[in-house]
């Protein structure tokens, strides 16, 4: 079912683009990733709008009022919040539902990339069985995995003549773009004690390392997909005016304030 609806069509479209692009698998991955991301663009816009609505809700006076009023009664708080959401016409799943719809597409994209680069005869057997009749197998196989300095079916290392080791350029770019993307996409938090914001910040640190590790160990074709996907997301947010570029700048250091300010006592002398 999953194969028939997602993986097989994705794999065939990817390989069709590959044949159109003069059997350049790197260009095929880039175009295929862009194509899928463009198709899911409306979902992304809907997700951003939903997220923004929820963000604005948190600054709404009535929302703050409800929070204060029912801070000791979580059930009543939830009921009142739901009523407010209904009244304001905000769908609480407006930001997460498009995200969930994108989820299988992203996984499918990733799996089809993996499937299009068979590692064993059995993988090849499975691939040949999933090709649509319009694809000419003699033109597809062997898949030309070379792109720039990389073999897209292998983890990438750039070997320079004066260095005794290879540099994992793609893994570094995957890390950098994941970090930039997560920083740009994180909305500014108004509450420094906000636990979800703290969790989000932790994820912003954790994800680049995780993705970098995957870029380091998995086929570089997947790294190429991660990079194109990250850059597309950054571009999407930038075009929609939702990228928080300030997040990339170092935050100004907190200045120690006079004791009088902290305690709220008058700062001016007696008249």
């Amino acid at each position, binding site marked *: 079912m999953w194969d028939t609806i997602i993986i097989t069509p994705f794999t065939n479209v990817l390989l069709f683009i590959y044949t159109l692009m003069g059997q350049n698998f790197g260009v095929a991955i880039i175009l295929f990733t862009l194509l899928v991301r463009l198709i899911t663009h409306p979902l992304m816009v809907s997700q951003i709008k939903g997220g923004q609505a929820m963000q604005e809700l948190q600054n709404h006076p009535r929302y703050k009022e409800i929070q204060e009023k029912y801070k000791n009664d*979580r059930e009543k708080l939830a*009921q009142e*919040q739901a009523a407010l959401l209904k009244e304001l016409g905000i769908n609480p799943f407006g930001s997460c539902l498009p995200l969930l719809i994108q989820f299988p597409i992203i996984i499918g994209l990733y799996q089809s990339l993996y499937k299009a680069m068979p*590692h*064993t005869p059995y993988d090849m*057997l499975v691939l*040949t069985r999933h090709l649509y009749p319009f694809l000419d197998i003699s033109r597809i196989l062997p898949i030309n995995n070379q792109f720039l300095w990389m073999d897209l079916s292998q983890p990438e290392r750039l070997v320079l003549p004066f260095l005794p080791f290879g540099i994992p350029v793609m893994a570094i770019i995957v890390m950098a773009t994941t970090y930039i993307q997560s920083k740009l996409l994180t*909305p500014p938090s108004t509450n420094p004690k906000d636990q979800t914001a703290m969790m989000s910040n932790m*994820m912003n640190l954790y*994800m680049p390392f995780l993705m970098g590790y995957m870029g380091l160990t998995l086929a570089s074709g997947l790294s190429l997909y991660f990079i194109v996907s990250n850059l597309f997301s950054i571009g999407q947010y930038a075009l929609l005016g939702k990228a928080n570029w300030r997040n990339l700048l170092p935050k100004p250091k907190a200045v120690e304030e006079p004791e009088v300010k902290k305690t709220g006592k008058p700062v001016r002398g007696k008249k």
Partner: protein
Amino acid sequence: MHTFSSPKSIWKVIFLLALASLMLAACSGVAVNNWPGLSHAGNAVYYAQLQLIKIDATNGTQIWRYPEKPDAKNSFIAAPAVNGRQVIAGNMNNEVIAIDDESGQELWAFRDEQGKGRFIASPLVVNDTVLIPSTDRYLYSLDANTGQLLWRFKARDALWAGVASDGKWVYLPGTDHYLYVIDLASGKLAWEMDLGGSMLHAPVLAPDGMLYLSTIVQEMIAVDAAQQKVVWRETIEGKVWNPPLLDDGRLVFGTDKNKVYALDAQSGATLWTVSTTGSIIASPVKLGDGYLLGAENGEVFIVTREGARGWTRTLKGKIYSSLSLSENLAAVGGMELEHLLVTFDAQGKQDWTYNPPGN
């Protein structure tokens, strides 16, 4: 009921965590998925799937396995070559290993530091020279005693199929559609021929110098190596994934489109075909007066030399590999089978089976 302190962030975190977990689960440390490679020498069967296992061919007892514990990264899928007291095999992590046949201990290991390939094809040992193709496009020639590199030959693309050799020339089929003929002593290319499709199995070399191989575009081809020309090419229904069997002037093979063929080796004319209910991936092997075939649907059956169906047995699982152990005994292996190896005699009676101790 839940509160909406910052739903977007929560969903983002859940989404990213789930995505990362799925991606890691899909790729990292996953065992290589392939059918077992089988070879036979003396009284032993050598089974390559994840590990290399030596099994007593008379009763199915395990003699040794290498490495002792399974290692997905360094897994073996291709049948090893046995050269006297050495068992030689390439793994999926760019290494060729020679193992002492008696003890199962490693004798030497070769690794091309510039290469990044996987050894999908079986090695061939000719005059103490190991010939092993790699997906990194190179055919490696190694000293069988030391593992030292003698030469390496670069093809246009990845090499998935094993080679054949007459002791002077090496016949190398490529996924790049080319058949390369290389001087065994020097590693220099003698001549090459575009056969129009990727080749995924080793060629069969007949004593008269004819080479038989198939391409993924569903053709069986006979090449006269001395004349450097294609003698015949026949379109077949389906792809052939393992070498055909050359027997008494007949070329017998099965396809993934449920067909068994016997072609006249001289002319390529079809002698007979047999339709099956499952795809045939394994090579046919001689058993008794006929040929034993294993199908992907678990059927093991006999086809006589005249093309008539003989007995059929059905195993739970998929059969992808086969091996002749004697005139009266053959083994089959595959994936999702109850036993890793199952043997049958010529009358269809099941003989010994093999599963690793403890399973």
